[in-house]
């Protein structure tokens, strides 16, 4: 029985292909509500689950969300973006060598300035490479680097999330608009909608794409009412869950005519 469990365990963890490089961390995201002047310390465990020794370089960068705002990020040198907290973070060590199946903790310390407003963000990378080009030879040679990031989200305790849905219009039977982050913190929105007729009957419902924004980011969204809606007057209620209890709700009254064309009549908060 015991041997069976061990064999099953081993089989479960054998990958479908042989990896040349493997890196693991236990803290991909650090999200804290902070107040001015405080110091926060912690550690991140870095592991090498492979049978090969790896060298890991550790460094900070800034990040911003980028199109299509589904969590995709662009990375920048530390301290170069408006919402960076890279300069507040110290960590040690900056390079480690992990033996096969070895692990090590990387300690960090965050010193919040005496005054903080809104949110500040950074990413701590753990990077290793598969190898180096050892000799100069003709042709094309490309080195592969792999890195895992721990995202830091440091937000003032009294920060408020504010977002809006703007520029609403109809294009080819689809209601389109811009989700705008009007606050000074990152907003992650998970949205959904339902459409009611004049009697209050729900005739259609659906999900709005997840949106990841920094302050002032503007992200196009689209909601396509069902083609099966008969002509008539409707109210579309869109709800954007901004996390931690914050919500944006927009009610959009629209008319669908006998030709199937949609016209927005009124938008309410």
């Amino acid at each position, binding site marked *: 029985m015991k041997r069976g469990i061990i064999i099953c365990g081993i089989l479960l963890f054998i*990958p*479908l*292909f*042989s*990896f*040349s*490089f*493997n*890196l*693991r*961390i*236990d*803290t*991909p*995201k650090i999200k804290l509500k902070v107040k001015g002047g405080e110091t926060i310390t912690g550690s991140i465990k870095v592991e090498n*689950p*492979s049978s090969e020794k790896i060298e890991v370089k550790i460094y900070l960068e800034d*990040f911003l969300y980028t199109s299509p705002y*589904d*969590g*995709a*990020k662009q*990375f920048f040198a530390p301290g170069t973006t408006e919402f960076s907290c890279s300069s507040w973070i110290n960590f040690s060590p900056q390079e480690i060598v992990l033996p096969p199946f070895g692990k090590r903790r990387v300690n960090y310390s965050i010193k919040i300035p005496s005054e903080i407003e809104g949110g500040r963000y950074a*990413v701590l*990378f753990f990077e290793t490479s*598969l*190898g*180096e*080009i050892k000799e*100069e*030879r*003709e*042709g*094309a*040679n*490309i*080195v*592969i*680097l*792999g*890195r*895992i*990031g721990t*995202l830091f989200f440091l937000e003032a305790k009294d920060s408020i999330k504010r977002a809006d849905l703007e520029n609403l219009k109809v294009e080819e039977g689809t209601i389109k608009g811009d989700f705008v982050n009007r606050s000074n913190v990152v907003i992650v929105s998970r949205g959904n909608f339902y459409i009611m007729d004049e009697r209050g009957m729900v005739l259609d419902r659906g999900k709005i794409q997840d949106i*990841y924004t920094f302050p002032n980011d503007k992200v196009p969204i689209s909601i396509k009412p069902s083609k099966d809606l008969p002509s008539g007057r409707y109210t579309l209620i869109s709800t954007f869950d901004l996390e931690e209890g914050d919500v944006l709700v927009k009610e959009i009254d629209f008319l669908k005519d006998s030709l199937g064309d949609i016209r927005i009549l009124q938008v309410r908060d």
Partner: protein
Amino acid sequence: MRGWLKTIGSLVIILGLALPGLTQSSKSITISATISPVEDLSVSISRIEGSNWYPNQTSIDFGTLSYDITNNIFRANCYYAVDVGVSGNVSNWIITHSVSSIKNAAGTDSLDNNINVSFNQQLDDTTANEIGYYSYAQSNRSFNKSQISPGWLRIYYGIATGSGDASGVESITTAKPAGTYTGTITLTLTPQ
């Protein structure tokens, strides 16, 4: 008589002590387990020549390209597959593929528009869905968990062949200066 009384007295004392345990027909046992948060990135490179795969390469090295005198272009005798596996129980994740220009030593020329990059959701060793096909120059892309799971991300890199190349990819001609061209690809795993 006194002996009997002593024996009975002892039995009463023993039963008195043992009875609460014996009468308890069921007992709760607390079981606890902690699953550690984990996010894991695994990368491997394979060189492919014809139908032969050579795994565990340490870089993408096309070597010296051969000149095809019929079509007047340079060709490679291999292409590469990079397998990127992610496992994690913490959150949704996103993989970012970012490249630096593949330049010659002088920095005057690049192969950025001479290499095809194909991104695939690999379901098993032989089944895949292509989720993007670009020139190396246009291959800065991100893929989230829902695009790759179940399975893993496999990225193919191949020198232009003049047929079936990605948009914007051109064959390498004699106009390209001889020499070593080097670049870097960074695969980044972060929470979404």
